[in-house]
């Protein structure tokens, strides 16, 4: 039994249709069933989950998981196992270096002059001394890499994340970050290179590289989740919050006041005594 899959793939088209209808406003009901208004706690948790499109998202997620299982994961596995590690590192560095102009642009748009400068310097050093970006010389010099994208830029400008969205093939996102992906695509200078093959290869390589790097983590997560979809949704939100704050401690997820369970333990211990003997 696989409790992580809460629906049957054969019924996916019907669900997708329902979700599509509710998305376009044609459906008679809301997308995810909102809890009754007389249950404020349930309503609050519904709001906090921030996933009104959950039924549709789960369908797309399931398709992504299957696509991953049969295509991306095997490819990433072969890449990870067959390609020598130094070559993998070189490819990873090369791809990261290519993204530097976009990172520079976003750092600048966020008003982070220090990081914009550092990124520019990294690009200059690694593109030349670092053999076209294959060696991260700048990193070894202590100029650390940190990714910035337009989703983060929008967040720095004060934009709300919007509802959680699972994008086909691209995976977890939200309204703000999805818009960010589109803007980054057009803002990336390499997009305007006349070599389409280069851009397709770069896109493909980025996906395989990322999947290979997170190979064990994603496998472990899928294997050990009670609800893989919900676990990924939670991780995505926390990860983005961390990225937006550039890992600053102040922006740690608001640490909930974890209640002590001592009182309840006492309750539990007292309870049998209070209960009338049967």
């Amino acid at each position, binding site marked *: 039994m696989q409790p992580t899959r809460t629906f049957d793939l054969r019924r996916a088209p019907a669900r997708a249709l329902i979700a599509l209808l509710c998305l376009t406003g044609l459906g008679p009901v809301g997308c995810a069933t909102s809890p009754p208004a007389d249950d404020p706690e349930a309503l609050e948790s519904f709001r906090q989950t921030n996933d009104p499109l959950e039924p549709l998202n789960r369908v797309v997620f399931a398709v992504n998981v299957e696509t991953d299982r049969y295509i991306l994961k095997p490819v990433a596995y072969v890449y990870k196992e067959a390609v020598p590690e130094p070559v993998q590192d070189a490819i990873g560095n090369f791809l990261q270096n290519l993204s530097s102009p976009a990172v520079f642009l976003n750092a600048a748009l966020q008003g982070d002059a220090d990081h914009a400068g550092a990124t520019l310097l990294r690009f200059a050093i690694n593109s030349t001394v670092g053999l076209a970006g294959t060696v991260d010389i700048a990193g070894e010099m202590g100029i650390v890499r940190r990714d910035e994208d337009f989703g983060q830029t929008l967040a720095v400008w004060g934009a709300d994340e919007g509802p959680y969205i699972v994008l086909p093939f691209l995976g977890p996102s939200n309204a703000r970050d999805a818009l960010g992906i589109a803007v980054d695509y057009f803002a990336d200078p390499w997009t305007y290179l006349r070599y389409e093959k280069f851009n397709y290869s770069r896109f493909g390589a980025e996906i395989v590289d990322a999947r290979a790097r997170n190979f064990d983590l994603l496998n472990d997560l899928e294997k*050990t989740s009670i*609800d893989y979809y919900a676990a990924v949704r939670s*991780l995505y939100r926390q990860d983005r919050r961390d990225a937006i704050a550039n890992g600053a401690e102040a922006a740690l997820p608001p640490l909930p006041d974890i*209640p002590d369970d001592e009182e309840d333990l006492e309750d539990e211990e007292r309870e049998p005594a209070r209960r009338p003997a049967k």
Partner: protein
Amino acid sequence: MRTKRENPPADRQSRNVRRPWAALLVAAVLLVPFIRPAVAGGAEAFIQSTADKVFTSYTGEITDEQRAKAFREILTATFELGTIARFTLGRYWRAASSDQRKEYRRLFEDFLVLAYANRFRDLGGVKLRIASVRAINKRDQLVQSEVDPGGGRPPIRIGWRVRETGQGLRIVDVIVDGISMSITQRDQFAAAIRSSGGKIAGLLAMLRDKTGPRQ
């Protein structure tokens, strides 16, 4: 931070004897700055030794079962599992019966061993570096640390939320690169309960299914 522990000149010593209040005042002024760091140092040392235990028990050729066993020992000795279990059940804790709570706590421990024992297998022998310690509230402190995974990869940031309990210091949350273990589990458990019609029994069945018979 170290104090100078030079012996005071003899004449001052004799003066201090004559004026005991002055000596007391000096002692108080010298000691005050050390009260807070002494507490923080406790959390720091606690995390350092816990991390060393985790990372050394991962070195060498050991099987997944041995790793799980070592992990469970460290987990039960250093984590406030009752509190974490209760937090991760969120608002459903109150609705749970006493038996359900007990079973949940047992399953939750098994689940943590399953989910995390092998997550850090590549970190055998790494060294944890404490970056900072700060108080979150009256009882909790946040110990920020870093681990260098090697291979040119960026350092992993690990935050430990440590609570002063009746049994001494205990961990109530671990935050890896900004991702809180307690929050992640709470979120997916809430989703699991919702998908089983708001029934805790549904989550318990899934956990039972996932963890299998206890090793």
